[in-house]
Structure formats: structure tokens, C-alpha cells
């Protein structure tokens, strides 16, 4: 195999392609990951968007994208991608456009669409072997409407619709495993706070044809309750505490691209966020903290 392009942070693109001044919130972890990915993907892409926070990026007559954009609906971005991809293949095949006029099709969706309403369309696009890159920015709730809990919300998190003393009673759905069960060409978890890991994964994904899917944990200052300046730090803590494992699926195997060692206590991650404040004040909820830590420990024991 040839040498990787991205060996150190210095190899990351220095030219940034996504325009500034969008209507995203300060410290948006989703925008951060999009910046990093778009820098590598480049402007020869058509971004097919599902309803979510990022829908407000392209706001008539402004767009931060130097390439193309198509907004679809909350549920059917993968189907929009199917139509665009098939049409471009047909146009190239029939020589109505030149091969160099081709675009990569990239889906941009939040967790609300990816984990729930859009899962059927995603599953089917993978099954059809659609050649696309799929980015889910996962802020663990319906962020655009004020952070109600979604199927991506972690256990115990307080959201606009889980304000009780124990927060969200459900458990975060394992979307990565659901994707992997489809045997796509590529799937990975990423986070903006680890740009080198991300860049290597994008590089790998770009070298493959077929369904390629990424979930990025995307810290959300408004929804998670913290000062925007801590977005990167919280992202790093998600990795160091092992609550957000960095891994990839390729050739039928899941490989972890980073083993947190020594693994920090999950409390380091939780106590920085307002959505978990009820675990610490007015008194510590020892049982819940233990349960969350035990789930993480069990995960790493299983994959260790």
C-alpha cells in the first residue's frame, strides 16, 4: 500500500474551502467536522442534505459551499443521492457530459434523520451499493428544534423532553453496528477533535467505491450545555474516556483506530456538560454514574 497522505497534522489541508459567516452556532461540532471533511473532499462534490441544523447553511442567496448543494427532506437524502448519482452515471455513459465533469455525492445529515426517519432510506441505499459518502453529524438529540431526545441520545442525558431526575431513560442506538451489519464498502466513527484520524479515514473512504458512511460525534454547546470554547476539549474527552470509540469497518472487519490508554473516568467528560449536571448536583447519583462507566468498561473489554 502507498504511504498515507496524512502522516502528521502538518499534512492536513491549509486551504479551507467552506466559507465563513454561516448561521451555525458558535462552537458547533457539526460545522467543525464538515469543515475538515470538505477541505479534503473539495468542491467537486454535490452535498445532498437532510433536514437538520445544517439545512440552514445554504440560505438564499448565500452558501458557504464552493460546490453544489441539494436539500431534500428529513427522510430521503439517500434517495436524492441515488437520483443524482444515477443521473450523472447515465450522462457520462451516454457521453452527454465529460467524465471530468463528474461530482462526488455526499450526504449531510443529523442524527435525527440518520438514526430514525432516514434509516430506511440509508439501509436501502447501502443495499443497492450506491456510490456515496454519508456524513452523520451526531449531536445526540433533535438539536435544530431545541435538543429534544432522539434515538442517538445517551443514557441519562437531560434534554428538552427528558427533564426528569434521571434524564433520558433510553440508551443510545448503535448506528455504526447497524451500518456494519449491511456490509457497506466502508463505515467509520470520527470526531472533529481528532482531525488526523478523520483525514486518514476520509482518504481511505475516497479510495473506495460504494457506500461509505461516517458518524461524527458532534459536541453541541447549546444542546449539551457548555461554553462554546470547550467544544474541542469535550470532543477529546469523549475519545479519552472511551465513550466515543474511534473505529472503522472495512473488508468485513471492525478495527479500532485509537485505544484510549490510560482510559479516563467518564466523569471527566460528563461533568463538563450541563446535560449531565443532575448526575453531580445537588448530590452525586452514584448508581447512574456507575452504570454509565460500566457500559464503557464492558465495551472496551469486549473489543480489547
Amino acid at each position, binding site marked *: 500500500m502507498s504511504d498515507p497522505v496524512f502522516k502528521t497534522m502538518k499534512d492536513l489541508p491549509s486551504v479551507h474551502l467552506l466559507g465563513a459567516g454561516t448561521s451555525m452556532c458558535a462552537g458547533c461540532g457539526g460545522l467543525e467536522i464538515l469543515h475538515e471533511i470538505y477541505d479534503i473532499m473539495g*468542491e*467537486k462534490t*454535490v452535498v*445532498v442534505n437532510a433536514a437538520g441544523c445544517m*439545512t*440552514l447553511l*445554504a*440560505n*438564499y442567496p448565500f*452558501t458557504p*459551499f*464552493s*460546490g*453544489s*448543494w*441539494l*436539500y*431534500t*427532506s428529513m*427522510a*430521503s*437524502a*439517500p*434517495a*436524492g*443521492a*441515488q*437520483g*443524482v448519482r*444515477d*443521473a*450523472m*452515471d*447515465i*450522462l457520462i455513459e*451516454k457521453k*452527454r*457530459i465529460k467524465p*471530468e*465533469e*463528474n*461530482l462526488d455525492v455526499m450526504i449531510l445529515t443529523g442524527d435525527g434523520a440518520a438514526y430514525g426517519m432516514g434509516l*430506511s*432510506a440509508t*439501509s*436501502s441505499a447501502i443495499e*443497492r451499493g450506491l456510490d456515496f459518502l454519508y456524513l452523520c453529524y451526531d449531536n445526540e438529540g433533535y438539536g435544530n428544534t431545541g435538543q429534544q431526545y432522539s434515538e442517538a441520545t445517551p443514557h441519562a442525558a437531560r434534554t428538552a423532553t427528558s427533564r426528569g431526575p434521571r434524564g433520558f431513560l433510553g440508551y443510545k442506538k448503535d448506528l455504526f453496528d447497524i451500518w456494519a451489519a449491511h456490509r457497506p464498502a466502508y463505515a467509520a466513527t470520527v470526531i472533529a477533535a481528532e482531525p488526523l484520524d478523520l483525514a486518514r479515514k476520509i482518504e481511505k473512504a475516497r479510495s473506495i467505491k460504494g457506500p461509505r458512511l461516517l458518524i461524527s460525534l458532534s459536541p453541541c454547546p447549546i444542546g449539551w450545555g457548555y461554553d462554546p470554547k470547550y467544544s474541542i476539549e469535550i470532543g477529546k474527552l469523549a475519545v479519552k474516556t472511551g465513550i466515543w470509540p474511534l473505529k472503522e469497518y472495512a473488508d468485513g472487519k471492525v478495527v479500532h483506530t485509537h485505544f484510549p490508554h490510560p482510559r479516563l473516568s467518564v466523569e471527566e467528560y460528563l461533568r463538563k456538560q450541563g446535560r449531565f449536571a443532575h448526575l453531580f448536583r445537588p448530590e452525586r447519583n452514584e448508581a447512574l454514574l456507575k452504570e454509565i462507566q460500566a457500559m464503557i468498561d464492558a465495551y472496551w473489554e469486549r473489543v480489547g
Partner: protein
Amino acid sequence: MKRMLLTGNAAAAWGARLANVDYVPAFPITPQTEIIESISNWIDSGEIAGCRMVTMESEHSMITAAGGAAAAGVRVFTATSSQGLLYGMEMIYTVAGWRVPFVLVNVSRGLATPITLEPDHNDILAARDSGFLQIHCSTCQEVLDSTLMAYRLAEDERVRLPVIVNMDGFYLSFTREPVVIPDPESVNRFLPPFEPENIRFLSGQPVSEAVAVLGGSPYSYFRYETHLAAMNAIPVYEEISKAFADIFGRAYEAVETYSTEDAEIVFFMIGSFATKAREAVDRLRDAGKRVGLVQPRLLRPFPEDAIRRVLTGKKGVAVIDQNLSVGKGGVLHAELASALYGRHGAPRVLVSFIAGLGGRDISPEEFYEMASVTGKAAEDGKIPPPRLLYTAAELKEVRKLQAVAHVERKGRSS
């Protein structure tokens, strides 16, 4: 040119085939499925080349893929029915706003609940305000011809909107009629390959499609643009209909009329039951009644001027709605009233009839009765409330079913 016995579904498939469509996103649903099966079989047997078909996982996705592909500049065909049209309704509205030209054949079927397979027009009328244009057919030949005309209409740069070609399930979809299949050369003359011009996604020519707007002003701007484009489709349809008649010798007015010239009472309706209305008009004429039929083929845009022209001076109109706006009545009745109200020479009365729901037949006697009730209302100016057509025999049948259900339930619980 050849003549074959074709179902309405096969005629729709032939329309797509002759239009040389590039792409067919599909999803099966009764009574439409034969359309996509026909196209699929032609692709598999090599009878048509250069057409790609993809079965999606839902109509919602199917219409999204159709819009996405049309936005990238290929000629797209798709088809659905009933619950499928409703399942995809979010995208029906959405892709119309993308201003992408493609054709969708809807095979009308009554909506749940109760669930049924047989036709009425509540499905297609639910798409009335979406921005899709609508052509309604009453024969299998019309289905084929309208599909070709629909592409010209959709792709015209003054219009650039998707078009639904509608036919009734069973009565047309599964009924074989002799259909003239035009030769490909003539079709190419009428409908040259799609030239998408600025409808493209290409590297180096970035396009942002379907972006958000902030506030009512830009929102209204784009909605008005869509409406004005739809209104352009009235004169454009006339041009297309002339061009079609020149090449193929079959003429399709936006508003079809039958024996209306000297008519006093007129039936007003859409769809395949209009062919039964023609028969009834003939019989009524035999009996010396001056009755006619007005049948809009184009429902969106609504050809109001043409409708006013043919109805001016008539005494009464029997509006036969094969749909039911629950809590109001017939949709066409309200549409027609808004086109005529206060106009000089407008018919004195519009009488509303609901008929043909879920494939319920409309008998000749019922047509005669509707003409008679409308004639009487025109005489005395007393407009009866909307009439829900139903016979004593039918009610007896349903009572019998209820009795059976009752006995069944009692039998099970004892």
C-alpha cells in the same frame, strides 16, 4: 405506427418507452405495478436500451430520486397509485418547487380507510395544490398520448414543472382497448431529446438547489414564480396539443366537450367515467333532452377561461365528483363554482353529485336522474344539497353484510 390491444398501464409504459426516458425510479403498488413491470421486462429483454430502472424502498424515496435525477438533467419517468402518492406527498410538493421536469403516471385508487384497490380521485386531488401539473385521461390511447405531451409540457422552458398523468385504476389500468402506437420517428419529431440547459449538477458549475429562505418575502417570490410558470402551461398546452394533432392526427383539447353547443344541461367531470357520460348524453339526446358533457383534461393549471367559454349560456351544470372532501362535498364542484361565480352568462345552477367512490359504478339511470335533477334546479332556482349517489339495493347489500358480521361475532363469542 401499429395498433395493439393495450391496458392503460401498458399504454403508460409505451408512453415512457417512446419518450426515450433515461431513468425510472420505481416502487410497486396496485393497480400501477404493471407499468413498472412492463418497463423492467423491456429493459431485461433488451427491447429498450439506455434506460436505467431502480426499485426504491418507498414512494417517498422514489419521488426524491426522480426529482434528484431530473435536477441533474436526465429524462425521468415514474408511476404510483393512491397510498403511494400520499406516502410520497411530502416530496410531491418538494420536487415541484425544484422546478424539475419529469412525468409521473398516477393510477387512481381510493384512499384508506376503508382500504380498497378500486378507483376514485381523492388520491390525485390530494396533489392538487402541489405544483405538479395534472392531465386526466379517460381512454388508454389518451394515456399513451398524454404521457408524450406531458414531457413537452414539463420540459418547456416557460413551464419547467413536473406533470402527473392520471388514469383510473381497473377501469383503465386493467382494461384493454385498441391503442395506436406511434412510430419512434414521429415521436422524435414531436418530442426531441431533453435539453436540460441550466438544469445540471456539474463540476465547475456549482448550483445550490432547494435552499432555505428566511422570511415570507423570498418564500412568496419563489411560490409565485412556480404559480406563474404553472399558469404559462395553459397557452403552452395549446401549442403542444396543436403540434400533437399535426403529427399524429389526434387532438386533445385542455377542455374536452361533447354535444355542448346547444346543450342546456351539462355534465362536468374528469376520468374514465366520462366515457359513460357520453353514452348517457347520446341516450338523453335520443329522448330529446339538450344535454352535453364538459370534461377538463387539464386540471392543473385549471383552464378557467376555456371552461367559462364552453359553459356560458348553459342553464345548469351537474358536477359529478368522483371524490369526497369530507365535511364539504365535491372538490370539482368548488373549483368550478370559483371559476364561474359572478361571471356574465354563467349557468344559473351548479348541482353537486358524489359518485363512483372506490370504483362504485355510475349507471345510465343515475346519469339520467342527475340531468333531470339539474334541469329542475335550473327551472326553479332551488339548488339541492350535494347528493351522495347510492341505491336502495346497495344499502340492502351492505345491511346484509352487517347482518353476516353480526352473526359471525355472536357465533364466535358463544
